[in-house]
C-alpha cells in the first residue's frame, strides 16, 4: 500500500482509532441508555429481554407527563423570548457605537461563564428575598422562563454576533441607497442574511432550556416541575427503565429539533 498523502488523514490507522474512540465516548452512554429503556427488568442492571411497557408506564405517569409538558412550554417560550432578545442585543452591539459598549459586551458573556449553581442561587435569592417581601412572586412557569432567558439569550447573542462580524455592511447601505428606510433595510437585507445564526441560536436556547437542571431546580416551585427535575427525583428512589424511557424521549426531541433546524437552513441555501 502506498504511503498516505499528507492531508489524507482517514488513511492513517491512529486517526481512525481516534475517531472510533471519539464516537464511542460520545455516544456509547446514550446508546446504552436507549437500549435499557426497553429492558424488561425493574432493577435495570441486567438485561432481561425487550419490552415497551416502560414507555406505556411513563405515558401513564401523570406527573411525568405534566413535567414533560412544562419543560416543552418553558423551552418554547424561552426560545422565542431569548432569541428575540439575543438577536436585538447582537445587532445593537454590531451596529451602533455607544458609551460603555466594551463593558456591555463583557458583561454579556457573564451568564455563559458563571457556574450554573451560582446563577441558580442568585435566581433563588432574586425571586424570594430581593423581591419585596409583601409581594410574593408566584413560583410558576413564568419565573423559570425568566431565569432561562437570562442565561440562554447571551448564547444567542454571541452566536448571532459571530455571523454579523463577518457581514459586509454595504448590503444594508445598498438597500438604503435604493430607497429603503433603516428599518426596512434591516428586515429585507440584514435578517435574511443572519438567518442561519438566528436558527442556530434559537435551537441552542431551546435545548439549553429543555435540558437545564441546576437553575430550574432552584427556581421551580412545587407545582412547576420540569422533566430534568422530575427525572432527578425519580432517580433518587431507583433507576427504573421508566427513567430511561423519559430520557430517551428527551433525546429524541432534541435530535428532531436539530434535524429540523438543519433542514430549514438547507432549504434556504437551495433556495
Amino acid at each position, binding site marked *: 500500500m502506498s504511503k498516505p498523502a499528507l492531508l489524507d488523514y482517514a488513511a492513517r490507522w491512529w486517526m481512525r482509532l481516534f475517531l472510533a474512540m471519539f464516537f464511542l465516548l460520545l455516544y456509547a452512554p446514550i446508546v446504552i441508555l436507549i437500549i435499557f429503556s426497553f429492558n424488561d427488568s425493574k432493577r435495570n442492571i441486567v438485561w432481561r429481554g425487550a419490552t415497551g411497557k416502560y414507555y406505556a408506564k411513563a405515558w401513564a405517569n401523570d406527573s411525568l407527563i405534566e413535567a414533560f409538558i412544562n419543560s416543552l412550554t418553558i423551552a418554547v417560550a424561552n426560545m422565542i423570548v431569548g432569541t428575540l432578545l439575543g438577536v436585538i442585543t447582537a445587532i445593537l452591539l454590531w451596529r451602533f457605537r455607544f458609551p460603555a459598549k466594551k463593558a456591555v459586551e463583557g458583561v454579556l458573556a457573564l451568564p455563559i461563564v458563571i457556574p450554573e449553581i451560582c446563577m441558580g442561587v442568585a435566581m433563588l435569592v432574586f425571586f424570594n428575598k430581593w423581591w419585596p417581601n409583601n409581594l410574593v412572586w408566584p413560583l410558576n412557569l413564568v419565573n423559570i422562563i425568566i431565569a432561562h432567558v437570562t442565561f440562554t439569550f447571551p448564547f444567542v447573542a454571541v452566536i448571532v454576533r459571530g455571523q454579523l462580524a463577518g457581514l*459586509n455592511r*454595504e*448590503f444594508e*447601505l*445598498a*438597500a*438604503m*441607497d*435604493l*430607497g*429603503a*428606510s433603516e428599518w*426596512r433595510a434591516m428586515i*429585507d*437585507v440584514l435578517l*435574511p*442574511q443572519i438567518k442561519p445564526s438566528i436558527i442556530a441560536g434559537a435551537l441552542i436556547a431551546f435545548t439549553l432550556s429543555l435540558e437545564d437542571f441546576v437553575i430550574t431546580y432552584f427556581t421551580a416551585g412545587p407545582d412547576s416541575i420540569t422533566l430534568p427535575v422530575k427525572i432527578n427525583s425519580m432517580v433518587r428512589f431507583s433507576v427504573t427503565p421508566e427513567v430511561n424511557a423519559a430520557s430517551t424521549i428527551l433525546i429524541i426531541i432534541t435530535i428532531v429539533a436539530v434535524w429540523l433546524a438543519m433542514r430549514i437552513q438547507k432549504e*434556504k441555501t437551495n*433556495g
Partner: protein
Amino acid sequence: MGKTVLSIENIVKKFGNVAAVNGVSLTIQDGDFFALLGPSGCGKTTLLRMLGGFDSPTSGHIFMDGIDITDVPPNKRQINMLFQSYAVFPHMNVEDNVAYGLRMEKRPTTEINQRVQEALALVRMEEFAKRPPDKLSGGQRQRVALARALIKKPRILLLDEPLSALDAKLRGAMQTELVRLQQTVGITFIIVTHDQDEALSMATRIAVMDEGSFCQVDAPRVLYEAPSSRFVADFIGRMNMHECIVIAEQDNGYCINAGGDMGEISVRHAPLPGVRAGDKIYYGVRPEKVIFSKDKPADNVGNAVVLENYSYHGDETLLYCRSQDGTLWTCTLTNDRRNFTPVNVGELGWLTWAADNMILLAK
C-alpha cells in the same frame, strides 16, 4: 452639457482630529463622467460616501440642482451608488435584486416588471434574470448592481472603485462598457478610483486628490500633458522629473538651464505665476516622448546616458538609464516590429526629446 448638477462647498470631514477631507469645493456638470483619483487614504471614498448620504460632513454643504441636500438621508436622494463589493443581495435572485429599488417606491407590478426587463437589457443580463447571485461571475454581479442602481433613474450614479475586483482583461472590457452605459442613459457618473489608467480612459473630468484636498481638477488630457504640480505629474503616468534654473522669461515661455549635457533651452510654455529669472523649478518629460539614440542631438536637448536595465512589456519596452550626473531616466520604446532587438544593458547612448515636450513645474 453645461448645467451644474452637483456642487459642493468647503466640505470638511474630520475623524477625531484627523481631517479626511479638508475643505474641498467642486462643481459637476450634468452628463459628466467625473473621476475622483488619488492614492489610498486620500479621502476620495469619504467624499463619495458624503455625496451618497452615508456620512455627514463636519462642515460645508452639498447642493444638487441648487438645493441643499447635505442632511438628506440616502434613501431620499436622487443619487445611487455602485458599491465596491457590489452588495448584490445574496438571498434574492437577479430579478428581485434589480426590482428592489422600485418595490421600495411601491410602483405597480406591471411597471416594475417592464423596467426590470429594460434595466437587464441595458446591462445585457436578460437571460440571467432568475439566477441567484452566487451563480454569477464577478463581472455579471457588477452588471446586476449597475442595473439595480440605474433602474432608479438617479440624477447621479456614484461608483466606488468599480473595477478593482475584476481581473485585468475584464477590467478593460468593463471600462468601455461603463462609458457606453453612461452615454446611453445620460446620467452623471462620479467614480472613485486609485487607478489612473481607469480615470484617464473613462472620465471627462478628473479631480486628483491628495491628503484630503484637490490638487488639480481638469480634463484627462490636460492633467497628463499639463499637470500643475509635481504631485500630479508624478501620480499620473510616468515622468522624468529634474531640477532646472530659470534663465529668463520669454514671450511665450521660458529659457531654462537644465544642467547635465544640456545647455540653455527655450521651452514654449504657459505662464507660471510667480516664477522669475533665477528661480529653481522643475522640468518633466514623459518617457514616451523621449528617444534613445546613438547620436548626440543637434539642438543639445538631451543627456548622455548608460542603459542600466530594461523591462519588456510586450507592446513596449521600458528603458532605465542613468546620466553622468547620476540621475535616473526612463524611456519607452514601442515594439512596433516583431524582430526588434534594440537594446543591450550597458549600452551608451543619448536620450533626446523635443523641447516643447517639456513640462515646467513651479511647485
